[in-house]
Structures are given as structure tokens and as C-alpha cells.
């Protein structure tokens, strides 16, 4: 049967996970620095050698699957009509496909916004606007502006189908790379992101990884099939839903704290749990991912501490340690920002990292979960719910360096739970915490493409 090797070309490390297909076990994991600047294969070879040295009796490698978030991952801009509707739907399509979305525009694109797009480092643009049969004037206007701007970036058109032919004619004779797909919001508040996600992945595989110098690795690994965050989302979905006779865990949340961003994934309907609650806003995706670009342990440490006052910071910082005062806690963040591979060596610094991780968890969950708002009606109190109700989530899974290496990571994950000062947020109330100790979430998302039963089994075995 042999070994299935799963490869993740991360921004810092190239991570390898080996799975024995016959014994159905995890053989081992290894990592080496990602070497995009020279030849991405160097890092891969080093990691492979480490793996082989540690496991000399590893069966022959018969399959390799790879994902990548190297060289900044996949960066997208989303454009829609109304901010809360098609612009939000477009953004969710990008996030669900594993992209980082730093630019979201609504209504008619202005010269200033086009300039922002020109200067921004973007891999793909997703253009939406209007329900099917609804407004087509705005998306056509924006399509024209994008053509004039000549950004040299692929454009996915996923808006009002009535505008599709006009935009097709507009782009046909240009040198633009464009794709016309299903509307991300065909009816008011109905989300339909699968077609857009599919094409994003296709462009990523065919074009983006080439531009980032990762394509070379395909000589050794075969096709790189998806961005890493999408692999994590796929693993989460598999773990929640189950596969055939192997049961899943049900509704769950995954928190992935990295150096630059914190990702939150939730799998579940998230519909209201009580009858007096009315759902507002755009439909939520069953598998939802949000990314916080200002919450991270190193690159984003500065942005992170600027979110909290010294007083608030102390609430997250273990009071046994008094290593930081109001000034030095900001200075330390700067130090972390400048030394991204810094590992804490004193107990004060460890406690500081823990505080950062707690803030990442607390804030990213606040932004991910839905909330309720009371409306006083003549018939008594009613509630608006915006976003997902995640109070019944059964499992919260932690992944990413700081959670994996922390001796008591579940303490950090406790920040996920409902809080007395955030009563209106629909956070998990009584969930169980699991840690991805071996760092296999992304790898299992890859394995799940070919062998979902085994991926599910290994996830259930190794998340503890």
C-alpha cells in the first residue's frame, strides 16, 4: 500500500506529514524552512530527509498531495454593490476558498479605489453585485472600470446573471483573464459561493502558485491542490460531518493562531435556537471561515496590542508575572514584530505570548460569532440574530504554533466561551477543547480529498 505524503508549503515552514495507508496510522511529521526565494524544492528535500531519517522503515511513498500558503498565501479583493449584501457575499466566497481579503469595495468603484487596487498586492479580484434580475448597472460600471485600470489580475465575475453577457462582450476582445460564474447572491440574502470558490481554487492551482515560485515543487509533489486555509476548512468539515459509517463530531469550531493572522472556522448551521429570535442579514455559510489580519503572534503583534488598553491587557496577562508595565508591554510587541522567529525564553515572555494568544482567541471569536439584539415590540421582547448562533458547538479545536506548543493550551481556548461582558455574543457555552498537537489539520484536509475515511479516523485519533 505504501505511504501517502502530505505537504504544506507554509509561509515559514514546509511541513510534511506521512501516513501509512496499510496500517492506517500517522507515521510522523517533519518540517524545514520554506525556500521560495531560492528553490522551493530545497526546503522540501530537507524536510523529507528529516522524515526519512526519523522513520527509516517508512514504506515507499506512493502518493503525494500538497497545499500552499507560501509567499503570502492567496490575496484577493472583493467587490459588490451593498456592503452588507453582495460585497459581503463576495468576501465570504474568497474567505471560504482560503484567501486573505484585504480589500472590499461596495457600490461604484471610484478613481481612488481603483488606485488602491493598482497599488495593492492582489492575486485575484472577485466582482459581484446585484441579485439575478436585479441591479446590473453597478456591476457593469465596475467591470468597465476594472478593464480601464488594466490591473493584469484575473477577474471572476459572480454577480447578476443579467449583466453577464454584457461583461463578457466587454472583456472578450481585451487581454483580460476573466471567468463568469454563478452569482454569489442570486436571491436576496441567499448565499451561493460554491461556483466562485471552485474557480478561485482553479486559478490558484493553475496560475498563482507559479507566480509565487512554488510551481517548481510540482515536479516532486504533483499538483498543489489548494491553499492551506482551505485544506484546514475541508478537514474541519469532514470532522464535523463524518464519513459513511464513521461518525463525525457534529458542530465544531477551529481556532488557528498564526504569526500574522488568526483564522476561525466553524461548521454548523448556526440558526436561532429559540422561537422568539428572528434571523437578520445575509445567509451564513455552513462551513464558515473568518480571518483576522490584525490578530497574530508576531507580524501582527503591534496591531494586536494597539487594540487593547494596558488595563485590558492585564486581564489577559497572568498576574503572577509582573514583567511588563504600561510602556514595556508595547515595546515587547514591537520586538516580536521585528523578530518573527523569536521564541520566549523567560517565564515573563511566555506569559506575554499566552496573553497575546488569549487576545487573538477572544477577539477573533467576537468577530466570528453572531450576536443578538433585543427589540421591544407590543407583543413582548423579540430578538434579532445577526450571524451564527454557536452556543451549542460541541468541540473547539486549537491549532497553530502557540496552541500546539503551549503546555496548557486549553486554558487559552477557554477565551472562546461565553463571557459576562459579552452577553449578546452567541459564543459556545459548554464545549470540549481539543488540541491539534501533531499539527495535522491541513494535511488531513488534503488526505480527505482522496481518502476521507482514513483522514477522519486519524483526526479523531490525534486531536486530543
Amino acid at each position, binding site marked *: 500500500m505504501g505511504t501517502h505524503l502530505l505537504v504544506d508549503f507554509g509561509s515559514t515552514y514546509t511541513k510534511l506529514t506521512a501516513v501509512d495507508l496499510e496500517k492506517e496510522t500517522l507515521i510522523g511529521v517533519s518540517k524545514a524552512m520554506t525556500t521560495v526565494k531560492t528553490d522551493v524544492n530545497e526546503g522540501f528535500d530537507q524536510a523529507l530527509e528529516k522524515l526519512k531519517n526519523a522513520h527509516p522503515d517508512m514504506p515507499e511513498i506512493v502518493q503525494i498531495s500538497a497545499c500552499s500558503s507560501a509567499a503570502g498565501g492567496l490575496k484577493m479583493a472583493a467587490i459588490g454593490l451593498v456592503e452588507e*449584501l453582495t460585497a459581503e457575499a463576495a468576501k465570504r466566497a474568497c474567505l471560504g476558498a482560503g484567501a486573505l481579503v484585504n480589500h472590499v469595495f461596495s457600490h461604484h468603484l471610484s478613481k481612488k479605489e481603483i488606485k488602491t487596487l493598482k497599488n495593492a498586492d492582489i492575486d485575484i479580484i472577485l466582482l459581484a453585485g446585484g441579485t439575478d*434580475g436585479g441591479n*446590473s448597472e453597478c456591476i457593469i460600471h465596475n467591470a468597465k472600470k476594472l478593464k480601464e485600470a488594466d490591473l493584469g489580475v484575473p477577474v471572476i465575475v459572480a454577480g447578476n446573471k443579467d449583466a453577464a453577457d454584457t461583461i463578457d462582450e466587454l472583456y472578450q476582445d481585451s487581454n483580460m483573464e476573466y471567468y463568469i460564474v454563478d452569482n454569489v447572491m442570486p436571491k436576496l440574502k441567499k448565499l451561493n459561493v460554491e461556483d466562485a470558490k471552485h474557480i478561485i481554487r482553479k486559478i490558484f492551482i493553475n496560475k498563482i502558485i507559479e507566480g509565487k515560485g512554488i510551481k517548481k515543487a510540482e515536479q516532486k509533489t504533483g499538483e498543489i491542490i489548494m491553499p492551506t486555509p482551505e485544506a484546514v476548512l475541508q478537514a474541519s468539515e469532514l470532522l464535523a460531518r463524518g464519513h459513511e459509517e464513521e461518525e463525525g463530531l457534529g458542530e465544531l469550531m477551529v481556532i488557528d493562531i498564526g504569526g500574522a493572522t488568526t483564522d476561525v472556522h466553524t461548521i454548523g448551521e448556526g440558526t436561532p435556537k429559540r422561537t422568539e429570535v428572528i434571523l437578520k442579514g445575509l445567509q451564513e455559510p455552513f462551513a464558515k471561515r473568518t480571518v483576522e489580519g490584525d490578530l497574530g503572534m508576531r507580524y501582527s503583534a503591534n496591531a494586536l496590542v494597539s487594540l487593547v488598553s494596558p488595563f485590558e491587557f492585564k486581564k489577559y496577562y497572568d498576574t503572577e508575572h509582573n514583567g511588563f508595565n504600561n510602556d514595556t508591554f508595547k515595546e515587547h510587541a514591537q520586538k516580536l514584530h521585528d523578530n518573527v522567529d523569536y521564541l520566549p525564553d523567560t517565564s515573563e515572555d511566555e506569559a506575554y505570548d499566552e496573553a497575546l494568544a488569549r487576545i487573538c482567541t477572544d477577539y477573533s471569536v467576537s468577530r466570528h460569532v453572531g450576536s443578538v439584539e433585543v*427589540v421591544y415590540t*407590543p407583543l413582548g421582547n423579540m430578538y434579532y440574530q445577526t450571524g451564527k448562533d454557536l452556543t451549542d458547538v460541541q468541540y473547539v479545536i486549537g491549532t497553530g504554533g502557540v496552541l500546539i506548543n503551549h503546555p496548557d493550551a486549553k486554558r487559552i481556548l477557554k477565551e472562546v466561551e461565553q463571557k459576562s461582558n459579552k452577553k449578546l455574543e452567541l459564543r459556545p457555552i459548554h464545549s470540549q477543547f481539543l488540541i491539534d498537537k501533531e499539527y495535522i489539520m491541513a494535511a488531513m484536509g488534503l488526505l480527505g480529498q482522496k481518502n476521507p475515511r482514513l483522514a477522519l479516523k486519524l483526526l479523531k485519533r490525534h486531536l486530543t
Partner: protein
Amino acid sequence: MHTVVIGVIGADVHAVGNKIIEHVLTDHGFNVVNIGVLSSQEDFINAAIETDADAMLVSSLYGHGEMDCKYLRENCEEAGLEDILLYVGGNIVVGKQDFNDVEQRFKKMGFNRVYPPGSDIEKACEDLMEDLNK
């Protein structure tokens, strides 16, 4: 096909009339976008922008309609919906008031048509066709 946004405005949860309006308008060949009960002015406006609606039919049965509908016309204009038709109907004011006064007041607020309690929705359909084909 004409698109019409319908809904119940403000903190009003009367859902039955809303369903009947949807049913009748659909029967008459309108593309109905029903945003349901407990809808804010913003919900009406956002829905009308995305769906490129020709008209908004605002329902209110709990007496606070006058407050809830205040500045809806101005807010529509602000959002670029200068030409949208605005209809309102139901128990739209507090207590028993002379309907002619009420109608005048709502027309001043920018509504094209105003319907008293117990109006026949078929009549509103006819008016809508007439106004849209003007």
C-alpha cells in the same frame, strides 16, 4: 417583470398580512422580494438596491408606522433610489384618526399611495400596474 420589495416595518411582527400580500402580488406576475417582519428602513433600501426594485410596499399594523416611515423617502433618495414608488398600508397611525388627514400626511412624507386598514390588496395591485406603466 417588475420587482417589488415588501415587508413589515419597525418592531412589528404581524406576519399573516405580509404572506397574503406576497401571494397576491406573485399571482399578478410581480417578482416579489419579501424581507418579512421586523424590517428596518435600511433593510428595505438595501433590498431595493440589490434587486433593482420598482416599488416598496411597506406594511405596518401596530400603530407606530408613522414614526417608522419617517424620512424613508429622503433615505431612499440618499441611497440613489430617486424613482422608486413607495406604498404604505395598514394601521399606520396611533388610534382612530380621519383617514384623509392620514393620507395627506403620508403623501407629504413622500409616499405615492396610502391604504387604510382593511384595504383590498387587489386594488393596490391595480394601482401599482397603473403607476408603473405611467
